[in-house]
């Protein structure tokens, strides 16, 4: 699977990627037409699955890379990046 685009981001909210923030992320990723993935230390999770995101265990300060398979989803990618940078609005 080739990566069309990716963004490297830092988790800034105190709680890290917990259930609620992961749910927000998964919901956004679900709008993409192709695959959306989150990578952390060489592990990859399906960004459309809240459970899969949680398995990466990302506390505050973690660096993650979000990537999309389909160039058409770049808008979704930007919105995910904005969500992460905003600390999930927490």
């Amino acid at each position: 699977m080739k990566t069309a685009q990716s963004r490297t981001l830092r988790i800034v909210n105190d709680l890290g990627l917990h259930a609620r923030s992961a749910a927000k992320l998964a919901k956004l990723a679900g709008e993409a037409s192709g695959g959306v993935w989150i990578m952390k230390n060489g592990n990859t999770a399906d960004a459309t699955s809240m459970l899969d995101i949680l398995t990466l265990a990302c506390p505050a300060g973690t660096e993650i890379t979000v990537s999309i398979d389909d160039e058409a989803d770049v808008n979704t990618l930007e919105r995910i990046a904005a969500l992460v940078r905003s600390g999930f609005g927490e």
Partner: protein
Amino acid sequence: MEDQEHQEIILTGIGGSPGICIGKAYLVDKEGVDVVKKYVIRDESRSAEVGRFKTAVKKARIALRRIIDNTPEELRQHTQILETHMLLLEDKMLYDRTIDVIEKERVNAEWALKKVVSLVKPIFENMSDDYLKQRAEDITHVSDRIMENLVGADQVDIGRIDKRVILVARDLSPAETSQIQLERIKGFVTNRGGRASHTSIIARTLEIPAVLGVGNATLKIKNDDILIVDGETGIVVVNPTEQTLLETEERREQYEIQKAQMARKSYLPARTKDGIRISVMGNIELHEEVVSVLDHGGDGIGLYRTEFQYLSRPDFPTETMLFDNYKGVIDVMGKRPVTIRTLDINGDKAVNYIRDSHELNPALGLRAIRYCLQKPDIFKTQLRAILRAAAFGKVRILIPMISGIEEVEQTIDLLDEAAQCLEQQGVAYNRDVPLGIMIEVPSAVVTADILAEKVDFFSIGTNDLIQYTLAIDRGNRHVAHLHQPLHPAILRMIKRTCDVAREKGIKTYMCGEMAGEPLFAPILLGLGVDELSMNPQAIPMVKNAIRSINTADLNDFMESVMHMTTADEVQVLLERDFGAVVSKIEPEQQEQ
């Protein structure tokens, strides 16, 4: 044969909430869900099988939505968990993978779901982060819901119980307890759970008896069996004989009469016969319980456990949320003292249904003050909230699990920092708050003289002190009987703590279960405990016991007690000298 069927059976568990009730059993069992059969699906039926799974998920989603919408305001804290469950229902890792297994392996939906859950759950169970570990329980709750719809197991809708019954269940999830029409429930019996479990808290708040941790209650008890539940002794009698029923009915009546008589005078202060005033306080867990403390005549809150706000949600509560909660309690208590114990999570305080069995030794692990000092941000948020709330009433801070002086010093530093921050921000606060420590680790007793230099009071937490001193896990049914409050070692520990405190000019309080046992009052007063704190329901009885005691008479008694070599001997002596006295209704006392 008939006789065999109706033989009286006695089951023992942990008394979760005092009181005695007699009634019919109402089983909320998920049997049938446990036994999942595997069978192969024909090729042409695969899409129908997937459809069956999707329908089951949809039904679960609708049911959850209905529960969330119907949850009354006061139980709203549970709905956050349920919202997460809604999302999990259709999470790819469960939903898509189950469909995948049905299609690829041509197995029935139940088996596919079970297989997927058994793959996904361990991922979470093995995580080191406690919050993430607990997600494994969420997966269980969610898959149980789907499974119930698939198996079509006679789903017991606890929302529709139409008679007053004793609820018997393996365990009750927050979703289930929030559905129960609680006024219909006479008592609870569960296989799992302990005193800190959700069911136990609810039962105590409602003042209905509960026996938890019975182990096999749902196997031994059938629907409509007549049960006697004694929440004091932790005993459940199934199919009691005529004789037992009569005896229990009598005991129950006496208990109720006595309770009523004691309650009538409970608002008065408790003074010993020789005029020594002993404060009798209440322990609370939910801020709603504060009303119960006042109703039962509590002189204050001796232990406000603050874990619930942390455990009932997926993230950490904010300073404002904590402050609002603390202030709510303080406002109700007025001038009476409110002892706020800082966060004591992990170890045995973890709510039982999310208890994690993978941590080998949680009681000796990263918990309470150790956890807080490792997470200073979380700790400081709580300390700030407490200092702010302290501006509105008589607050004391109580630090759990102290094992050495460094922990006290670090806490004081953090308190100073928090106060300084509040000062700079111009927020109202009060730094002049008595700081106390829980005496529950043996090393704290041994070094009490060192610790006393830095703190304003001690509060003995007998449950943990007994566990750590005697090396007994009372949650373990095989050794629970060795959990002896009257063990000479425990009495000596309490004595040393009180002696050191007196010498250093500070007070010793007690907030463990031992404090709530009226029969123990003579010993505790004799040892020199200055204040007792207990479940609100126990306050009237303990006040009554205190009124029957003349401390001047205790010297000889204590002399004998301290020479006894076993807990049993102490118990016998205590019952002989005080058994009848402490339970007799004491006449009205004159206010002095």
